[in-house]
């Protein structure tokens, strides 16, 4: 069937007007969308209250599905663990024996550390946990890496607070709703974290690649001192992330740095800890605060 030469929907005036109006409404929708995009490009935080409301509203259902997710993962871990338990058990016993010795050494070192710091009158403000909560959802279809945290202003979470799991840094709080908060994960390409090598403190920046890896950019360019397997911890410079939080391990070397894998895979963590900011950030940070643009 060839398309009809006369493309009028009908001879009825009413039907023609309806068709025209529906097209006009469609174009209007696109225009509204364009206006919204321009507003959010100019002022990224403009719609944060709206997003906060939406996250708060979907919070109970998201919490439920998060617990379901945990259950599924635990069940799978138990099933696989059943087959490996013998060998694992033996290996763990061996490692535990070694670890006990190391722990004793570490205790001695930290005691000595404390004594030396007391001597020099360097007191570190003890940052505590603000809240423990689940990451309930994430933007899994977008190139941006945001997650939603199941705690908000009701549990004293404020923008800028670092979020970590027991394995390492996860991200930082960006927008806060009343019972939920939006977290910028460290793998987002807008997130830049100052890091240093755990062993000798080579300084660098860890920027997200957007695909689950981090790009490590060395501050002092020259011969690349990084090696595969190096562990990077946050350095605390800039005063947002607490120093010494484990962050990533180097997997590939590139000319001016490295590609690293994040230590705490956010999909493997059930509860995360929201910490106080390392130093109070000067003004309340806008969405682009503490980040670097590539262009």
């Amino acid at each position: 069937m060839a398309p009809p030469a006369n493309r009028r929907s009908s001879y009825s005036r009413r039907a023609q007007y309806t068709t025209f109006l529906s097209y006009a409404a469609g174009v209007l929708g696109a225009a509204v969308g364009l206006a919204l995009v321009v507003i959010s490009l100019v002022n990224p935080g403009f719609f944060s209250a709206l997003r906060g409301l939406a996250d708060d509203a979907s919070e109970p259902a998201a919490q439920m599905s998060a617990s379901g997710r945990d259950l599924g993962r635990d069940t799978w871990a138990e099933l696989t663990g059943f087959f490996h338990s013998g060998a694992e058990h033996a290996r763990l016993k061996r490692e535990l024996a070694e670890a006990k010795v190391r722990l004793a050494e570490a205790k001695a070192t930290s005691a000595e550390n404390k004594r030396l710091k007391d001597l020099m009158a360097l007191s570190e403000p003890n940052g505590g946990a603000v809240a423990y909560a689940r990451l309930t959802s994430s933007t899994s279809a977008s190139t941006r890496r945001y997650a939603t945290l199941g705690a908000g202003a009701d549990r004293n979470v404020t923008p800028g607070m670092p979020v970590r799991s027991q394995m390492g840094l996860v991200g930082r709080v960006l927008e806060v709703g009343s019972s939920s908060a939006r977290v910028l994960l460290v793998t987002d390409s807008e997130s830049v974290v100052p890091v240093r090598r755990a062993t000798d403190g080579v300084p660098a920046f860890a920027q997200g690649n957007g695909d689950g890896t981090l790009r490590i950019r060395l501050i002092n360019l020259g011969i690349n001192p990084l090696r595969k397997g190096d562990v990077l911890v946050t350095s605390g410079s800039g005063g947002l992330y607490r120093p010494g939080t484990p962050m990533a391990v180097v997997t590939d070397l590139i000319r001016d740095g490295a590609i690293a894998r994040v230590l705490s895979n956010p999909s493997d963590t059930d509860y995360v800890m929201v910490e106080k900011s390392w130093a109070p950030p000067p003004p309340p940070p806008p969405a682009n605060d503490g980040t670097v643009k590539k262009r």
Partner: protein
Amino acid sequence: MFQRSAPRTTSRQRINHAPSRFLARGFPWLTVMLGSLVPGWFMIASAPVMPPLGFLIYLGWRQLRPGLLPIWAGLPLGLFDDLFSGQPFGCAVLLWSLTAIALEIVEVRLPWRNFVTEWLMAMGLIVAYIVLCLALANLAGAASPFRVIVPQVVISVLSYPLVGRVVAMFDRIRLAPIVLLR
């Protein structure tokens, strides 16, 4: 992919029942909104891996039942998607509205349809949608390279026929005769 005039045996079995009017009109909207909301709950992803399910379902409804969702449906549905997608706000409103207009224009000029043409059409729209989403996100401050979205594009394009089947299933639910006629 879509059986347009599938014989509805269920309605013939229950002659004194009719489809719920609310479900028949509202179910497409509901499924698209769930498609925008629910995939984020399944995993805390560290890369864009899930297909943009809200968009796929929206496209599926548009292709299965042209005219069921009005052309301006991209405005409210995209607004809802933007609340949860993490894209710069307004991205989905703009792109979903443009999708509807593009689809209408193509369907007027191309009345032949079968599985392949519909899939090809959807393929073009999906690839354009994901690429433009990346471009808008990068414009808003991100700096993700192009290769990040390649797996997502492949997954989305390949899963679209499946989404089409699911939408067809939704369509049967939508028209299930559940209201008793008196």
